C-alpha cells in the first residue's frame, strides 16, 4: 500500500515533538477524516532553524508530517511557503489515491505555523 519512503518516515519519523519556545505554532484538523497535526517552528532571521511536529493520524499523516519537517528545515519562510501538498507526496514517492488528502494536513499545518509566526512578529 505505502511506498518504502512512507514506511521509513512512518517508522522513524524525523523531528517529532515540541519546541518549548516556538515562535510559530500551527494546528490543523483534517476536515475529511478528523485527524490532527501541530507544527512548531523556531524561526530566526526568516530562516527555519528548527521545526517539530505532533500528529494524531494515519500512517500517511505521520509520514507526511515527518517529511514536511525535513523539507523545510533550514529553509527561508518564502521557500517554505512554496511547499505544496503535492510536493510532500512526491517527496515520499507518492501516496495511495485514497490517502492523497492526508498530505494536506502537513502542508496546511506548516503554512498555519508560518502565518502564526508572521502575525506574532507583526505585533
Amino acid at each position: 500500500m505505502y511506498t518504502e519512503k512512507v514506511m521509513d518516515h512512518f517508522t522513524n519519523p524525523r523531528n517529532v515533538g515540541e519546541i518549548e519556545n516556538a515562535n510559530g505554532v500551527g494546528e490543523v484538523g483534517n476536515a475529511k477524516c478528523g485527524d490532527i497535526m501541530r507544527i512548531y517552528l523556531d524561526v530566526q532571521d526568516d530562516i527555519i532553524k528548527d521545526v517539530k511536529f505532533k500528529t494524531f493520524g494515519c500512517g500517511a499523516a505521520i509520514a507526511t508530517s515527518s517529511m514536511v519537517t525535513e523539507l523545510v528545515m533550514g529553509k527561508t519562510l518564502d521557500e517554505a511557503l512554496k511547499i505544496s501538498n503535492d510536493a510532500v507526496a512526491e517527496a515520499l514517492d507518492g501516496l495511495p489515491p485514497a490517502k492523497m488528502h492526508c498530505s494536506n494536513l502537513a502542508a496546511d499545518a506548516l503554512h498555519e505555523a508560518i502565518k502564526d509566526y508572521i502575525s506574532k512578529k507583526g505585533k
Partner: protein
Amino acid sequence: MERIYFDHSATTPVDREVAKVMLEYMTEKFGNPSSVHSFGRETRKAVEEARSSVAALLGAAANEIFFTSGGTESDNLALKGIAFANRKKGNHIITTAVEHHAILHACEYLEKQGFTVTYLPVDENAMVSVEDVKNAITDKTILISVMFANNEVGTIQPIKEIGQLAKEKKIYFHTDAVQAVGNCHIDVNELNIDVLSLSGHKIYGPKGIGAIYIRKGVKIESTQHGGSQERKLRPGTENVPGIVGLGKAAELAKIELDQRISHLTNLRDKLINGIQEKISDIKLNGHKEIRLPGNVNISFFYVEGESLLLNLDLKGIAASSGSACTSGSLDPSHVLLAMGLTHEVAHGSLRLSLGRGNTEADVNYCLEVLPQILERLRSMSPLNAN
C-alpha cells in the same frame, strides 16, 4: 518474523480438512450437479450432504438451506427477496443502526424503491432494545432484521426476544449471523429465527460461499435470474467445492463449538484484562459480557487506528480498526459513532479478533508489544498533552 493473526472477524484461514475435500471436488469430482451422468450425480450427492451439514449446525431442515456466494449476497437476498415478495402486505422494515453495510446499503436501496426503513438506535454497548423494536412495529411492518452479533464490537443482540416478538406479530425475522455462526449456539427454532445469513470464510471455510436459512413457508423471491439451481431461488452453476467446503466447515463448527467458545473466551478475557492493566486511558467497546467469545475492541485515547495497525503489523500482529483512515470512506465506524463515541475516540479503536489457532503465547506477545507502541504513538500525539 512469526506472524500472529488477530483478525478472524475479517476472515479466517481455511481449515486443512476443508481445503482437502475442496481440492478433491476441484480436480477429481468436478461434475456439474445438474448433469445426468455419473460426474454430475456424485457432485449432486455431495451438495446435498453439505446442505444437511449446514442445516444441522442451525437446527434447521436441509431444504431450508440455500447456498449463495457469501454473507453479502445472503443479506441482500433476505432483505430484497422478502421486501419485494411481500410488498402487498406492507412496506416497512425495521433494522438497527449498527448492521453491516450489506444490510444498511440494501436498506437504502429499498428506500429508493418505496420502502420505509426504521434504523433503531443502540445503547452505549451497541445493544438494541427489544422495547424499541416493539415500538417501531406498525401495521405495515413486513420484516425485522437485526444482526446476531456485531462484527466490530462483538455485542450479541437479544435475538430470541426479538424473534418472539416478530412471531407474535406475524412479521418475518431475519438475522445476519455471519459473525455468530460457529461462535455461538444457534438453533433457529429455539430462537424464533425465520431467515438467517452466514458466510463460509468466517468459520474456517472458503471465501465466495455463503448460505441463507429460510424457514419453510417464508415468502421470498430471487434476486438473481437464470437456471433452476437452488430451487430457482439462487440460479447459477453450483460452486461445488465451495459448498462442500462450507459443509465440512459447518460440521467442524458443530463438533468444536463448545471447545472453541471456551478457548476464545479465555484468551479474550486474558487480553482484555492485560490491556486494562498495562495501558491507561482506554475504553472497552461493546458489551462486557454479552459479546462474541473472540472479540476484543478497545479505543486507545489520543492515537489513531491506522497508525496503531501499521505498528502492530510491523511487529507481526494483524488486527483491524474502526478508524476512518482504514476504511474506504472517510468517516470512522458507524457502529462506534452509533454507540455515542466521539470521532476522536472512535478513531483510536483497535479490534483484535481471536481464532481457534491463537494461543496464550500470542496474547502474551501482544500484551508485551502493545504498551510500547502506545507509548510511542502517544508521545507523537498533539492530543496527549492535556
